């Protein structure tokens, strides 16, 4: 298991909320026993989950912006905490990110090209003479005209332009691993495909990507493998084609049938039935030992409530569900 590029070993993360009186003692289990691995071969791995499923926590853990409560995260066989302590520069040079929000990621006080200059300076990518040429190149690669970008302030550019500058930053840094946290969710549909194609280009350049998203459609378009995360647990994983065409976990199935098809001839035939129990927000998640999908699952069994099913391997897929014992 240690020979992957990035390996999560039974990683859990608990957030303690400090706040109002005894209520403030509440803890939130953001991740529970998460294990997965990215191979050394460049690949695009999609991590698909709803909001609050813990997918952004995974992203912050990888970048060292948070520390795991338990478990270990290895990069090239070496613990991340060790990397950050002893060779931080190298680590952040190799592991980079594209954030979700193309607006908030720019400091409104500075011109946009500062993010590129800073990357060059901090990572000693090039000398000052060469830097300008590299910036021009990297902007052109992502389809921007440098003249229209350089020297502008963030608010003067559209979301699409700003997110592309983030792409060109990645072209400059050329990390080994890119964590893309919902990079297209705030972009228009017409720009998404163009943006995602760059992740494919990155793969050719030897950059692996962890593509974090709530949108199975785009995951299907770009990813080699898919992992489905729900409420801090990974429920199913496998090659993209298999997971989408033959989902195993009831949750994955529900997700897939809920996605509207852009074809008026294929409208939904079934209806979502509301169960009053489901009306209440799922709370008390922190103490669940069983399957987190238990109270929404139509196949729920007694044992699902208190035990989390072990991984079952079925063909190329892996699923955590007692239906496949």
């Amino acid at each position: 298991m240690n020979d992957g590029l990035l390996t999560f070993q039974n990683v859990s993360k608990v957030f303690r909320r400090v706040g109002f009186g005894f209520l403030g003692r509440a803890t939130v289990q953001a991740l529970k026993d998460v294990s997965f691995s990215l191979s050394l071969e460049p690949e695009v791995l999609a991590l698909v989950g709803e909001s609050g499923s813990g997918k952004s926590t995974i992203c912050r853990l990888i970048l060292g912006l948070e520390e795991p409560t338990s478990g270990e995260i290895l990069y090239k066989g070496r613990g991340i905490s060790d990397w950050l302590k002893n060779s931080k520069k190298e680590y952040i040079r190799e592991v980079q990110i594209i954030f979700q929000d193309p607006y908030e990621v720019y400091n409104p006080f500075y011109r946009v090209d500062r993010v590129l200059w800073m990357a060059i300076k901090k990572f000693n990518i090039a000398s000052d003479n060469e830097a300008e040429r590299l910036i021009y190149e990297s902007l052109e690669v992502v389809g921007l005209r440098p003249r229209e970008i350089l020297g502008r302030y963030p608010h003067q550019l559209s979301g699409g332009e700003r997110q592309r500058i983030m792409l060109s930053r990645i072209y400059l840094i050329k990390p080994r691993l890119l964590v893309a946290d919902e990079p297209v969710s705030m972009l228009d549909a017409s720009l998404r495909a163009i943006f995602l194609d760059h992740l494919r280009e990155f793969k050719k350049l030897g950059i692996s990507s962890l593509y974090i998203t709530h949108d199975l459609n785009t995951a299907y378009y770009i990813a080699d493998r898919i992992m489905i995360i729900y409420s801090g647990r990974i429920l199913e994983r496998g090659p993209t084609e298999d997971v989408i065409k033959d989902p195993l976990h009831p949750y994955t199935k529900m997700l897939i049938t809920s996605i509207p098809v852009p074809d008026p001839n294929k409208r939904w035939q079934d209806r979502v039935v509301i169960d009053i129990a489901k009306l209440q927000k799922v709370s008390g998640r922190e103490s669940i030992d069983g399957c987190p999908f238990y109270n929404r699952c139509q196949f729920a069994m007694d044992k699902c409530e208190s035990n989390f099913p072990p991984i079952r391997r079925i063909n190329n897929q892996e699923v955590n569900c007692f239906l496949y014992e």
Partner: protein
Amino acid sequence: MKRVLLILKYSPKLTTGIIIILSLVLLAILEPTINYYRLGGRSSTEIGLFDTFLPPSREHPFGTEAYGRDVFSLLLTGLKYSLLIGFTAGALATAIAVVLASIAGYKGGRIEAFITTIANAILIIPSWPILAIIVLFVRKVDLFLLSLILAFFSWAGSSRQIKAQIASLRERPYIDLARVTGFSDLEIMFKEILPNFLPYIFVGFSYAVTGTIMAETALRLVGLGPADIPSLGQFINWAIYSGTLAQGHYIIVISPIAFLILTFVSLNLINVGLDEVFNPRLKQVTGV
């Protein structure tokens, strides 16, 4: 520069505020020159220079007061000292606020708790009576010491605001981006966070100026503070205790009050204008 002009065009409030305060400051700066020519080199506070209670005329636009001094000259002198005290104390208060808030926001934990406690204490304790007592007991109060004492009681409010601002800025994605680009904590504090709360620093500054001018005026009204600093408050004090109102010479009392109000209004207009321009909700529209 073009940006600045656009901002001024967009917010008439900000423009008006800036114009008023700049004119007041200009008057205060020119005070020695103007008074030199008007009074022939004699001090505006010298008693018995003219007859008492002369009505407004070409020579004395606001007339003269109970001690035979030219009201207009006294006004200019008062304005100079009031603004001087206000700006000195305001700058000191803002400096204290920024330094303490940055330390609190940056260090967190116990130091933050300590600073917050002191700030809250100053906010809660009725500071003016204490201020009065201190000024009463300190032997010799000069302008700087007075400003320092005033500043000590007026940094807490803006320090709290700035700290809240730092706390919210700290969570922005661009801070995360700076972190993964290898910025140190100090660089993040000074290069990424600080520039973004400059407007708030100015807002805190102008509140502090307003507050200290008010506190100083209040001290003067009850007869405290250094008599050799003839600020607007001192002028009002003289006017009131010489029975000016009783004799119906309202303009002598109203004119210094009007100058004070003008100062407060202009600073407040600047605050509101800055909020208009830099408020994140409206930013999309203003495009600043």
